[in-house]
């Protein structure tokens, strides 16, 4: 593990930043999930320097359509502009900091602060200040617009960052783009969001969720045994540990995914609860992406993926979500259904139901996962538990890149290679005092 800079004196977490994750020994310090000072540092060095997911294009299709969401703890508003672009700005009045938008979403002509009445247009520009003539000597309203984030999008997904020196979103996603394409570009017209955004709060650190979606196929056979059994009431399902799959660790950026390529077809049953779901799935979709051209593709209810730091997708369950951090020990999960635009209405409805049954607030699989994350977090209230290292050695040393069809993968879905990539990138950000690692130039050079 190479660390460029040590912790500065300003923040003084109770453990050394260079010892939090050790790639060589495959160990994680549990302090990273529980230490409040580390969390404060994460807000600065991880979240304010990375591209963060904001919304799907179809959440805000028309001019004035907006979504009030968050970039980590910072409330922001994403608004479709009249020129078709999207602006993302801090949902904070520049006068005394009240939210300038207090609803979840809709269509607006302007945003007026409910405290003293400062009013902003849909681009976040300050356009009207009550008593301006009478009581302000000279207020330059141009200087007092809402704080703007930098916005970019990839195949329907809108991201934003506070890091004006960050690489483009395309460079940031890097070689993870081809794996995102398996989901976003698997059929003509791409994807759309359906239904509302389902939101829930659970007491666990954001990294448990983000890391699991990045890397963890391993837990399935133990944690999700019950819904697998329930989906096959008459016969015993196949052995999920027999499936052949791949795991991808982004060459830089901390992104990761994993999926099965053979044997997993029966997993489709798990979300269907006995009903027949149409054939509109990955296998039936046109082979559009580079990874599909060879004829190989992920199959069944299988592809998990995290775009660093906190945006995750589970392809088979048609769910996309953000793990908004709320302190070291809590997250707000914001999840929505992601379906193929080209699917019929009946097919979209089946996908929606499948999402609700599996990965949603009341989804059977979701609750299995939440139970684990919340319980681990509770364990970490213990002083001794917080200083007892975790094992992240699974699949260490496995060669990457042996399968030309799936670049940068190891030929085993059951591994923690992507998790190690996630934490290696996280640690580089956390130890980067001046933010130089997150700048476009150094980013492109630094393989992890």
């Amino acid at each position, binding site marked *: 593990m190479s660390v460029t800079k040590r912790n500065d004196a300003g923040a003084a977490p109770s453990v050394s930043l260079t010892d939090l994750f050790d790639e060589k020994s495959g160990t994680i310090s549990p302090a990273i999930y529980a230490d409040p000072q580390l969390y404060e540092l994460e807000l600065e060095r991880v979240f304010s320097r990375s591209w963060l997911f904001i919304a799907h294009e179809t959440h805000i299709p028309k001019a004035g359509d907006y979504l009030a969401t968050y970039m980590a703890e910072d409330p922001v508003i994403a608004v479709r502009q009249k020129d078709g672009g999207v602006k993302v700005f801090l949902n904070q009045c520049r006068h005394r900091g009240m939210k300038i938008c207090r609803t979840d979403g809709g269509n607006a002509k302007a945003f007026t602060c409910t405290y003293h009445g400062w009013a902003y247009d849909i681009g976040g520009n300050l356009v009207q200040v009550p008593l301006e003539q009478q009581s302000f000597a000279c207020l330059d309203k141009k200087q007092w617009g809402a704080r703007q984030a930098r916005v970019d999008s990839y195949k329907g997904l809108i991201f934003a960052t506070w890091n004006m020196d960050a690489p483009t979103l395309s460079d940031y996603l890097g070689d993870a783009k081809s794996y995102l394409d398996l989901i976003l570009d698997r059929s003509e017209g791409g994807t759309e969001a359906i239904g509302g955004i389902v939101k829930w709060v659970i007491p666990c650190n954001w990294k448990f969720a983000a890391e699991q979606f990045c890397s963890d196929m391993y837990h399935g*056979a*133990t944690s999700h*045994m019950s819904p*697998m*059994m329930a989906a096959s009431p008459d016969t*015993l*399902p*196949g*052995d*999920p*540990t027999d499936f052949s799959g791949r795991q991808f660790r982004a060459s830089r950026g901390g992104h990761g995914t994993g999926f099965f390529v053979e044997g997993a077809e029966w997993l489709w049953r798990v979300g269907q609860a006995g009903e027949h779901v149409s054939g509109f799935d990955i296998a039936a979709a046109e082979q559009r992406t580079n990874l599909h051209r060879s004829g190989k593709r992920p199959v069944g209810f299988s592809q998990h993926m995290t775009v660093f730091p906190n945006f995750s997708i589970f392809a088979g369950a048609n769910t996309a979500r953000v793990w908004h951090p709320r302190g070291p020990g809590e997250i707000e999960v914001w999840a929505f259904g992601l379906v193929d635009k080209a699917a019929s209405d009946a097919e979209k409805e089946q996908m929606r139901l499948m999402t609700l049954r599996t990965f949603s607030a009341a989804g059977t699989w979701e609750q299995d996962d939440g139970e684990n994350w919340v319980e681990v977090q509770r364990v970490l209230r213990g002083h001794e538990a917080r200083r007892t290292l975790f094992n992240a050695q699974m699949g260490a040393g496995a060669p990457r890149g042996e399968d030309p069809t799936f670049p940068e993968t190891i030929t085993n879905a059951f591994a923690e290679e992507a998790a190690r990539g996630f934490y290696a990138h996280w640690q580089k950000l956390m130890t980067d005092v001046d933010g130089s690692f997150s700048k476009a130039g150094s980013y492109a050079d630094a393989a992890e």
Partner: protein
Amino acid sequence: MAFVRVCSEDEVAPGEALRTESAAGPVALFNVDGEFFAIEDTCSHGQWSLSDGYLTGDQIECTLHMAKFCVRTGKACSLPATKAVKVFPVQRQGCDVLIDFEDGHFAA
């Protein structure tokens, strides 16, 4: 056919199990309400001793990962196990329980 005496019936109470070594590997003998059944003792999932498990009716649940097997047929009844274990013929002679270790087989 080579039945071998394993124990007397009062050595294995109803709901209990007895592990015994044989040339065919370890075998678990179960008492299901006075009926005796024998299957391979090693769980087909996690290589653990089934005689150490919890017997409910005619199903034995492995103590490590909760895989279940029918002790009459050896068939897997619950994930994470998916492969059956062999069954062995059992005979009673008076108070003795005998197992034919040479005839371990997968039930049809």
